[in-house]
């Protein structure tokens, strides 16, 4: 029995139950909660926190993808090759800066809320996408590129119809890494009042309520595992179609 057949639907069901029917888990979490304290987080619905969490990750990763892929396209053109080291340095800095530091620095400028978290996730997500997009765009099959030119595609048509689709599976690997990192990192956004599942975890840590920590952690973890898996499946499908697998 493979992972896909049994485990995947089971994990999806578990995630849905945790988010939509948290009260089902009261008996399970009761021993972990402080005596007489709340077992299930009730200050906000877990569904709306999940949606807000996923929304933040999607927005940050989406922006990071657009910027990183655009940069990668520019530096893989003959005229942009000179900027490759520079852009690599910039995206590297984005990766080395700890997200917590970005949050702290961004709050005075952007105020509390989703803003600083978006900035931190965006910066943190650039590098893997940029690096992978560059690899994808600079390892295209030479005969295909020669033929694309030879049959009369102009630069733009070659980029849109051939280069980007062929680089997609590798780029997608970078996006997957970024998204998974962002899913986890987004939880610390709640320290600056972004609405994420981190809220549940932080509430648990502040009140010594392990049940809360576990709930928040489990939901974030399950999202990460399932989204990672879905993107892997998508990459495999694309790679298979292109005969690269």
């Amino acid at each position, binding site marked *: 029995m493979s992972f896909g057949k049994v485990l995947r639907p089971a994990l999806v069901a578990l995630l849905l139950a945790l988010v939509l029917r948290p009260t089902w888990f009261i008996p399970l979490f009761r021993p972990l909660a402080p005596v007489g304290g709340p077992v299930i987080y009730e200050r906000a619905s877990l569904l709306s926190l999940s949606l807000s969490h996923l929304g933040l990750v999607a927005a940050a990763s989406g922006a990071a993808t657009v910027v990183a892929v655009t940069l990668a396209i520019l530096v893989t053109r003959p005229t942009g090759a000179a900027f490759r080291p520079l852009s690599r340095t910039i995206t590297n800095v984005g990766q080395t800066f700890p997200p917590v530091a970005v949050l702290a620095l961004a709050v005075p400028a952007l105020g509390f809320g989703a803003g600083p978290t978006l900035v931190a996730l965006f910066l943190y997500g650039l590098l893997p996408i940029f690096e992978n997009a560059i690899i994808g765009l600079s390892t295209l*099959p030479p*005969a*295909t*590129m*020669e*033929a*694309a*030119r*030879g*049959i*009369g*595609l*102009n630069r733009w*048509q070659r980029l849109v*119809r*051939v280069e980007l*689709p*062929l680089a997609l599976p590798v780029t997608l690997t970078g996006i997957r890494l970024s998204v998974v990192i962002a899913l986890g990192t987004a939880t610390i956004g709640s320290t600056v009042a972004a609405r994420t599942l981190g809220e549940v975890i932080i509430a648990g840590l502040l009140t010594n309520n392990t049940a809360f920590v576990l709930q928040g952690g489990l939901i974030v973890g399950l999202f990460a595992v399932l989204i990672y898996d879905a993107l892997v499946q998508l990459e495999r499908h*694309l790679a298979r*179609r*292109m*005969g*690269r697998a």
Partner: protein
Amino acid sequence: MIEIDRITKIYDGETAVDDVSMTVETGTITVIVGTSGSGKTTLLRMINRLEEPTSGEVRINGESTLSVKPHILRRRIGYAIQGHGLFPHHSVARNIAAVPDLLNWPRDKIRARVDELLTLFSMEPAQFRDRFPSELSGGQQQRVGVARALASRPDLLLMDEPFGALDPIIRTRAQEDLRRIQQKLRSTIMLVTHDMEEAMRLGDRVAVMDGGRLVQHGTPAEIITRPATDFVANMVGDVERPLRLLSLIPVTEVMEEGAAEGAALTTRASLRDALSACLWTRRVEVPVERDGVRVGRVTLDAILARVGSHA
């Protein structure tokens, strides 16, 4: 008609193609043959301006190739290369439709053209249309590559070592297919190869390049019987010259009345096939049949006489 007029390409002081002129008649196959570094590929790539000539020009049906933008020019010139260069993320149908699509042909016309070409290349359209290149054999991929190059009925088809990646048996079949399709469509083809055998088999005219220069341009028989330089003679191969020559002559040319014993050759066979049959089965005459009916014979003496007349 394709006119190549005193075309030269110089890279950083190195002359890759040196003042080459030649004329290619519409509806013929011209094979450019040479060793690697002879400039044959550069010459071909200057025709569709994948390389810009340093001097000289190419005219297609009287019109200079410099008068249009390169990518517009290339849509009128088919291009097939070694290792096919198909788009791995597009189906067979979309690959073949690439140029008609760029030219904004109507959908149903493109579809009809794709099916027509697949049929022409002996690939059942319903079976192959929606497959991806990675699901095809090497020979099939190569056929789709040539079909793509022919899709928009180009004025000219350029082929750069198109069969180089195929194994010998499939290569022979691909060459026969190309000959058959070229005769049916009356296309004008320029093909680059390093293989003299291929040049002899496919070319109406053969152009031999050496060190960037065109050293001889003529029919295969001329190249074999009157090589212009030692280099050409060497390319033809002294030992194989008579056999190469025989392979160009159909049996019908020396066929005579009369019967002979043993297995028969068809009228499409060459004298090389006839000689081979004689040697292999120890005969001095071989019967020839057309559509299963014996129409005459070829004798060993006639074959020898035919070769001797060129010595």
